[in-house]
């Protein structure tokens, strides 16, 4: 009878697990969606304030000048852009466009970089 192997592989080095780019797009789609859901009440509040009266409108405009608010809105813009691009990628996959591994990887890169690009553009527009 064979002895059970005592040295079974238990290798689990997190730093060496490779996350495929599609997995990154997928988890970021989820995280960005949650960020958008959490930010929705704030966005509704801004809409409410901006149409209320002249003072409210001026207050919203002034908020966009504050660094902390800018940082938060940049995060929200990244979440929106990434969620939108990754979502379009999903819709295209639904109609069988880009399901091939090579194309899927390329479109995953595009979605990830697209979200970041929009954020950088928004930062540029703010400065």
């Amino acid at each position, binding site marked *: 009878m064979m002895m059970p192997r005592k040295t079974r592989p238990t290798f689990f080095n997190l730093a060496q697990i490779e996350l495929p780019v599609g997995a990154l797009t997928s988890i970021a789609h989820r995280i960005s969606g949650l960020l*958008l859901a959490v930010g929705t009440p704030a966005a509704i509040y801004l809409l409410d304030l*901006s*149409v209320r009266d002249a003072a409210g*409108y001026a207050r919203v405009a002034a908020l966009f000048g504050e660094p902390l608010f800018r940082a938060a809105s940049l995060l929200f813009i990244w979440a929106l852009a990434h969620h939108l691009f990754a979502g*379009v990628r999903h819709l295209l996959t639904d109609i069988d466009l880009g399901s091939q591994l090579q194309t899927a990887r390329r479109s995953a890169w595009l979605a990830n970089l697209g979200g970041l690009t929009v954020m950088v553009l928004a930062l540029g527009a703010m400065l």
Partner: protein
Amino acid sequence: MKKAFAGLRPWLLQRLTAVFMLLFVLFLLAHFLFDPPRSDAEWRGWVLSPGTSIVFTLFFASLFLHTWVGVRDVILDYVHPAGLRIGALALLGSGLLAMSAWVARILLFTPP
């Protein structure tokens, strides 16, 4: 028989609302690029005009349905104890209902 199609409805809802919101984002972006509001009166007039406010209403309806399906999926994936799960879903549902009422108040009852 009905069970074979379970999950198809939220799946379809998620996609239809996504497409509508995509169009809305493009519409809003185009407005800000080509005809940005120059004063509070202009902005309020645009948002509360009959056409735009209907588009906004449809957008928020899409957003809340989309959020319900999406966050519900996340809760079902990660929150397992039954009580906690029901609590989380109830919180999500009541939050979305409250926001619906809030948006309705903004779009319908803001004095022009």
